[in-house]
């Protein structure tokens, strides 16, 4: 059994509702699944101490984060909860999946350098538009694929395809929003090894 830690900053003023929506998608996805060690970390608990407590003992785990980000950290109103300078080594042997701005520029690389097996994130702005499910669908897609056993190289390809599908469906009527989705797609980045959920389990 592998630990799955899911961080959602649903109380954030700007993107809280987007994060909330994604969390609901995850909850729906995991209903009735065999995975038992799922922990949701919400806004109030999104701080480095809590992260430390939850991850210290684990030899490997899966981690997803939906919150604000900058090139070298993830943060909430409670502070930086994952950062290149604070707790980067906690993510050794993990699969790290985030939907936040810019972390692909530095944080991703730092994670891998400190033992994280594979990282998915964005090296630019991550945009979303109220009322358009396409943004969250594309955002979540890769994670679910990982849970289902696809290897990460393949996941990256498929995420791009997914993005393109939605862009192509949208652009005629919703050119503006499509242009934002395109920016998300081109910001997507994967760093690290080509792993599957099983290879992660075996690392325990």
């Amino acid at each position, binding site marked *: 059994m592998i630990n799955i830690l899911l961080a959602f900053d649903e109380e954030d*003023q*700007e*993107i809280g509702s*987007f994060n909330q929506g994604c969390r609901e998608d995850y909850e729906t996805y995991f209903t009735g699944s065999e995975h038992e060690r799922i922990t949701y970390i919400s806004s109030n608990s999104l701080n480095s101490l809590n992260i430390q407590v939850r991850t210290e003992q684990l030899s490997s785990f899966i981690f997803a984060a939906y*919150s*604000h*980000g*900058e090139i070298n950290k993830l943060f909430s109103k409670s502070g930086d909860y994952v950062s290149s300078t604070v707790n980067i080594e906690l993510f050794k042997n993990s699969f790290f999946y985030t*939907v*936040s*701005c*810019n972390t692909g520029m530095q944080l991703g690389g730092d994670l891998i350098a400190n033992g994280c097996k594979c990282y998915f994130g964005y090296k630019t*702005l*991550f*945009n*979303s*538009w*109220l*009322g358009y499910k396409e943004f969250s669908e594309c955002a979540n897609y890769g994670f679910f694929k990982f849970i289902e056993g696809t290897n990460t190289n393949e996941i990256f390809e498929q995420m791009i395809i997914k993005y*393109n599908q939605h*862009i*192509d469906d949208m*652009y005629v009527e919703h*050119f*503006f929003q*499509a*242009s*934002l989705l*395109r*920016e998300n797609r*081109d910001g997507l980045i994967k760093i690290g090894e080509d792993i599957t959920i099983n290879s992660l389990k075996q690392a325990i």
Partner: protein
Amino acid sequence: MDLCVLIIDDDIQRIKEGALIWELEDKFGSDNIAFESDPNEAINYIEENLHKNIIILLDIQFPDKVMNGHEILSKIREISELIPVILWSAVSEDKETFSDFINNNAFGFLSKSATSEEMLLMIDRAISYFKTSLDNTIEDWIIQKDGDKDKPVYFTSEGKSYSLNQILNEIRTQTDVGKSFAKKLNELTIDLLLRNKETLND
């Protein structure tokens, strides 16, 4: 396109009766030609008619006690960079008007002794500008939308949110964020062309 031509000049009476106005009214409809001789009134007019595509003919020489043409141009630019302002002046192109071109993005220059034909050509250029400018396109798109334009709809997980009106303002004042939207549209266009979803000869 909801077009309107605004003429700002202190000698407005003479101009209202001139041959140029006959031509303009025949072309755009008399409802769409506006005149203001008071600079402050002119600014008010613009603010109230931002939903239209306004082309402005601006006289530079105003009596000194009032705002002069350069200052009026500055004030217009504070409202929006997207309105074409054509300088109309008896003074020939010189250092003064030149600096307005650079600093305040004047759209063009017409001499007071220009023929109606020359003036209409310049106005046509301004109309083309509306059609080809992405920023103007976005502006029109937002203007045409219904609903609450003050509700935040666009979010980035950098921590920023924008309503439609805010996006409109960013575009009009050409902030970095404002300029980025046209850029994103262009990038999508290029992407579609590269992926053969669209071709150029449509």
